[in-house]
């Protein structure tokens, strides 16, 4: 049943689903946007961490006496103490502060920490060796679907192969960190965070663990984050450095800035688990998949982590016999943090790559093979449509050839594809919309914009609802004093915040209509707000401009409230989407260098609010995907236990010249009635598998492990 909160019908939408420029675009392009790192407060001190230099050990001595004599020293707090164990290089041990950044470096360098070293292990790909080092633990052993033995008997073709992805790191350009200004009872935190509303309680809890500080109320903590420089899943908590920064501020009676150093950022503040596995997959001669079996392992640091949902997308439990075992490898590397679509990019590689290999063995076009088995997915209709659309965009029919049939010459061209899915359910959100007598409208909530477009989407929702334009709306987010809204993770923000904003705006408008109805002498239910006016449907001459309508409020400000979830609040959002991506690559078989010619992506997210920012999320995912498919890996040295590339020259990201052509198609006006579903994760899943499949198609052999660096490509060619 339709409610007043439902999204307007397609013919009534003037803004939703259209292309709009980012409302905070000019501020960012002008370099005027203030990030946490940019805060320079009066008298501010600069803090730095002192971290573990050993991958595993016990702290036997911390000597700050020399540090305290260094010019500019202002204080230090311990994070760990003598007797505590460290489990990776870069573990936070203490934080120091000084009057300048240069002096802070001097002070930190003068702290001496002594360790009793303990045995360490940082290697994850060779599971046998890790097992011998007693670092492997079973994590999952699931058997589902039809009888596995029977299924294997019924298979006409099987493929057994090894596939994997290395540990990568988030490398947020604005590192983790914050400025804390502790004045009297009030603690102001400029935090680089994905969770503005969560940080006060997180910090209060962390501080209250320190007996010398006592109980701190989250109400006294104000988090201010209008802009933040990248999170990708790694910035949900205050972390040890945030708590230490607050303690230093209290101790010094001054604001303190603590932003991680680049090498700390790469070693300890990011990390997507690896995944490796032996996969067996079987189909009948006509291409019907019958069985999938995997034994996989991964590391995400000392706690293991990283169990991928296998088999991925093609996982119908009634028709596909399936078995997935997973082992966790415990390593002394920086602990994993959530990365866009946790475990899904790995699952895509471990499913879509064996499927491509099986298609090649069956002598089938993978597009036909992936489509034929779409009934094994949760969204057969979506995927079939998207595969066809994507194939058209990449020119599959014209360009695809059988595996390895790439013609003469050293440069081989190939195509590959991958499918993905994600939930993207809405998070909880509360919103307050204000309408002022001067016509001003503000949308207020303690949400955040990670660069995904929250300022813009909320402007669009409020403007559409009120019949106004985007510049008429002021969006206030990035402050924990505003109505509480969820953390931005798991593609939950746009669904949650757009729904609470829609409801709050509808409620506020209703109140305004009540006032206007009286002055126009019509029923409130007869009024509509459109094109900057409020007028009667039955008699358009009974009309007031938005400004004049608001003037009727006198000195009263209307506040409308909305929340998500809301049982009576209409059908505004949903979860569960599908997407397809295809890659066109060239591989030089003499140098092993892979070049991206083009990547095409088709994505369903229910109702699109802002087409431009939605597409940007997909482009960004593809570009990041080129990075981890071809270049990115955190390289650890077993002898020293150290990460060898915690910097940006040897931890390689994709550049503007590495990405080829990119084409994105958002599915619109097809599944709009499902409401809004998040976009952050889904397109970030498939690039690695699609690119790996394209390389296999080009050179005729599978390069088993991502990133597909020249050495790995040449090694795979040498093995044929």
């Amino acid at each position, binding site marked *: 049943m339709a409610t007043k909160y439902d999204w307007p019908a397609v013919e009534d939408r003037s803004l939703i689903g259209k292309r709009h420029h980012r409302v905070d675009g*000019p501020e960012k392009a002008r370099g005027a946007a203030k*990030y946490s790192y940019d805060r*320079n407060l009066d008298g501010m001190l600069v803090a730095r961490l002192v971290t573990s230099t050993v991958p595993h050990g016990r702290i036997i001595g911390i000597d700050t006496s020399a540090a305290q004599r260094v010019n500019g020293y202002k204080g230090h707090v311990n994070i760990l103490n003598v007797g505590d164990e460290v489990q990776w290089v870069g573990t936070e041990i203490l934080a120091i502060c000084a009057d300048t*950044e240069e002096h802070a470096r001097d002070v930190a360098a003068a702290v001496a920490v*002594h360790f009793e070293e303990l045995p360490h292990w940082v290697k994850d790909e060779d599971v046998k060796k890790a097992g011998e080092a007693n670092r492997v633990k079973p994590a999952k052993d699931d058997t589902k679907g039809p009888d596995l033995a029977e299924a294997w008997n019924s298979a006409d073709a099987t493929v057994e192969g090894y596939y994997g992805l290395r540990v990568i790191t988030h490398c947020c*350009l604005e590192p983790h960190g914050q400025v804390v200004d502790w004045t009297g009872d009030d603690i102001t935190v400029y935090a680089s965070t994905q969770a503005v509303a969560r940080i006060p309680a997180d910090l209060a809890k962390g501080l209250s663990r320190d007996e010398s500080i006592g109980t701190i109320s989250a109400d006294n903590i104000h988090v201010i984050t209008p802009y933040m420089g990248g999170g990708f899943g790694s910035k949900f908590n205050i972390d040890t450095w945030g708590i230490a920064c607050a303690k230093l501020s209290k101790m010094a009676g001054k604001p303190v800035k603590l932003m991680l150093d*680049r090498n700390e950022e790469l070693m300890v503040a990011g990390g997507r688990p690896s995944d490796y596995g032996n996969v067996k997959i079987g189909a009948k001669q006509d291409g019907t998949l019958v069985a999938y079996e995997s034994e996989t392992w991964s590391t995400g640091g000392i706690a293991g982590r990283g169990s991928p949902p296998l088999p991925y997308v093609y996982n119908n439990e009634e028709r596909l016999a399936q078995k997935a075992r997973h082992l966790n490898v415990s390593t002394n590397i920086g602990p994993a943090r959530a990365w866009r679509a946790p475990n899904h990019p790995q699952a895509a590689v471990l499913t879509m790559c064996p499927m491509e290999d099986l298609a090649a063995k069956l002598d089938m076009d993978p597009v036909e093979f992936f489509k034929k088995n779409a009934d094994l997915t949760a969204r057969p209709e979506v995927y079939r449509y998207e595969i066809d659309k994507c194939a058209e965009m990449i020119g599959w029919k014209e360009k695809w050839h059988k595996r390895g049939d790439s013609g003469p010459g050293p440069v081989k061209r190939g195509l590959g594809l991958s499918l993905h899915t994600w939930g993207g359910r809405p998070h909880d959100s509360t919103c307050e919309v204000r309408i002022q007598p001067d016509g001003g409208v503000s949308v207020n909530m303690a949400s955040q914009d990670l660069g995904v477009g929250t300022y813009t989407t909320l402007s669009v929702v409020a403007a559409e609802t009120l019949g106004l334009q985007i510049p008429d709306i002021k969006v206030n987010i990035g402050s924990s004093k505003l109505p509480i809204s969820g953390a931005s993770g798991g593609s939950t923000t746009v669904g949650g915040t757009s729904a609470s904003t829609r409801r709050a705006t509808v409620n506020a408008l209703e109140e305004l209509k009540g006032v206007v109805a009286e002055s126009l002498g019509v029923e409130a239910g007869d009024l509509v707000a459109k094109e900057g006016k409020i007028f009667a449907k039955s008699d358009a001459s009974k009309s007031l401009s938005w400004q004049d309508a608001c003037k009727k409020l006198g000195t009263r400000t209307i506040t409308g409230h909305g929340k998500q979830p809301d049982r009576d609040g209409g059908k505004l959002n949903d979860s569960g989407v599908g997407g397809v991506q295809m890659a066109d690559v060239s591989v030089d078989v003499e140098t092993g260098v892979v070049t991206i010619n083009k990547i095409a992506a088709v994505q369903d997210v229910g109702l699109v609010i802002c087409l431009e920012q939605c597409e940007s999320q997909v482009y960004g995912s593809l570009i*990041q995907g080129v990075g981890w498919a071809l270049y990115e890996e955190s390289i650890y040295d077993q002898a020293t236990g150290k990460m060898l590339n915690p910097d*940006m020259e040897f931890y390689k990201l*994709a550049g503007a010249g590495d990405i080829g052509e990119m084409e994105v198609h958002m599915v619109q006006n097809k599944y709009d009635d499902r409401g809004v579903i998040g976009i952050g994760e889904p397109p970030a899943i498939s690039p690695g598998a699609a690119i790996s499949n394209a390389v296999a198609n080009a050179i005729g052999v599978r390069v088993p492990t991502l990133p597909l660096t020249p050495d790995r490509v040449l090694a795979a060619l040498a093995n044929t």
Partner: protein
Amino acid sequence: MSSNKPQDGPVRGPQHEPREGFSRRTFIEGVGIGAGAVGALGAPERVRAAGNDVLGPDPVSITLNINGKSHDLMVEPRVTLIDALRNRLDHTGAKKVCDRATCGACTVIVDGSPVYSCTMLAIEAQGRRIETIEGISTEDSMHAVQTKFVEHDAQQCGFCTPGLVMAGKAIAERNPRPSMADVESGLSGNICRCGTYVGVRKAVYEAARGESA
């Protein structure tokens, strides 16, 4: 037993190296005469020419010409241009990200050329014309590159954006008819993590060529 205690020696001053990884000094020595290193290596010669034997470690008085305005400040000789801009002058548009001449987030224009301000000492920037992102627009009017960045949604989190805008401006000023390959080459010293290059390439290409959308 292991220790992170540094070698015996002074605990202050520019000769004191960070604990881990490359130091800026060994990096500069390692790469030889790179674009960013020229200035740093020139420092002692200039100082001697001025009749001084020793510079630092205590702060020295310098004057920087930024966006056409003269700024007097006291900095230790080891302070980089990025740190002088951000920490002393509150010009926070340029960002400190890799801090070793890789990512371009700190890009400013010095005497017409894009420069990694993390790898130029503030003292070396004296007497030179420094242009930062703050100097190329006002609240009411943006540079063509900036306008195109907004039009093509060439930014997400926006942290790399000021550096890319400055690199884009330098490309546009040097070549009014760049090919897309020229644009990619000109942007190759800047890294974005969110993945905005599709918009960035279009923005710089059109801005350089004076094309409307």
